[in-house]
């Protein structure tokens, strides 16, 4: 059944992704955004889910500033609009910076209320858009590099796996899908990665840096030649 027009912000994760409040999946998603923000030097991060029927993204989770969370939750972003919508439309990670009137970038265009740096990375399950995760910084002159973008895209990919696993599990539990006799190699590995992540970050914020360094190291190994 399609969601009603007035989508209740508090239930967006459960309504669209099947992830209930205070479940391990909800905590992992929040930790992924917090960790991703810390790794790239962002101050706030968000998860926007894709509302397929309305063809918009909706803010479902925000970290870093409780006021932003209150203000943004439930707000809709059309696909293709702004950097976040563009990440959703192209399924590619995007970075953004403010517009300036001059080439020396001294005088900002507009009212100057936009962040100094933004990353938007799509969450894709199979070929299907699930949502977008963002990181923003209001630090003067801050710019996200392409390496930051690749790293954050890695967090988005893990978030998409969390959602995908939840969906598959829900389908098995409700009887909509038959439980496979043998777990696929990929599914088994994904489950192991997630379980490890959860153990690493649970209950000890001091470990966040170590996990971030680990992920950066893994990214360096997994991706082709690092940019100079």
């Amino acid at each position, binding site marked *: 059944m399609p969601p009603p027009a007035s989508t209740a912000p508090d239930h967006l994760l459960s309504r669209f992704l099947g992830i209930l409040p205070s479940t391990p999946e909800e905590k992992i998603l929040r930790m992924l955004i917090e960790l991703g923000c810390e790794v790239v030097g962002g101050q706030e991060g968000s998860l926007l889910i894709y509302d397929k029927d309305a063809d918009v993204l909706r803010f479902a989770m925000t970290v870093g500033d409780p006021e932003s969370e209150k203000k943004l939750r439930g707000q809709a972003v059309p696909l*293709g609009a702004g950097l976040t919508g563009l990440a959703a439309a192209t399924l590619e990670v995007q970075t953004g910076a403010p517009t300036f009137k001059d080439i020396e970038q001294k005088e900002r265009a507009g009212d100057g209320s936009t962040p100094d740096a933004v990353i938007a990375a799509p969450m894709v399950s199979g070929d299907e858009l699930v949502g977008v995760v963002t990181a923003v910084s209001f630090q003067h002159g801050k710019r996200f590099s392409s390496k930051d973008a690749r790293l954050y895209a890695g967090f988005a990919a893990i978030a998409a796996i969390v959602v995908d696993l939840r969906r598959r599990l829900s389908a098995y539990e409700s009887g909509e899908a038959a439980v496979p006799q043998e777990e696929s190699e990929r599914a088994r590995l994904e489950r192991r990665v997630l379980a490890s992540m959860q153990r690493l970050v649970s209950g000890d914020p001091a470990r966040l840096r170590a996990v971030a360094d680990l992920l950066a190291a893994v990214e360096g190994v997994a991706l082709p030649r690092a940019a100079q």
Partner: protein
Amino acid sequence: MSEDPVLSAFHEQLSRLAEKNLQPVDVAVLDSGIDATHPDLAGRVAEAFHFRPESDGVARADVAAGANNDTYGHGTGVASIIARLAPNVRLHDLRVLEPGNKGVAACVIAGLRFALERRWRVINLSLAVAEKFSTELIPLCEKAYFQNQILVASKRNFPFPDVGFPAAYASTIGIEIGRFDSPFKLVFNPGDTIEFTALGEDLTIAVVGGGYTTKSGTSFATPVVTALCALLVGHYPELRPFEIKALLKHYAAAAAG
């Protein structure tokens, strides 16, 4: 007897080429279009076209010269880098991306085919299509090579499921992103399908409607190399694509010391 252009080019400082009396070079930009009303691009765009998908194929429409043909801003940013670095460039704007920068491979292929018909000397592709389109793309890139056209193309920023095409073909100059203190510095990547790394971090680009912003990505490293190719061809029109590659490798080695 005049000196061999290749030998002369080997002794030329790339960064000083822009100061020379260069011949105009036609550069096609296949992208989201160009805002030719931006002060940095006014008078630099010779022609503009729009390739759009239709039920029975791809339609091509002429766009008024000097107008804004960019619905998103990607192509304007790319073109502004080329225009700034290579004053001898005459831009040809081929809009092959739809609003939101959404790409349709058939439009990219139609745009490339058109650029080959027109024989514009350098073609910038700050985009990538999937490997499954290689059946159509490879012969076009081969044709460009043999009719002395230089294709410069971007690697994907996030190289999954592939590094992106046509950047990975031998007949093109594939570009990876790097951070350097000058656009005239390059890295040659021996053994890699993406042969060159160029400045693509924190580049100042023109914004549709006026103004400037900062962008990073392989999309913006690619026009840096396109501009370098245009400078070389502007001074040494006889250069063939393989000679351009050899010169870029030479400059990369020189820059590395």
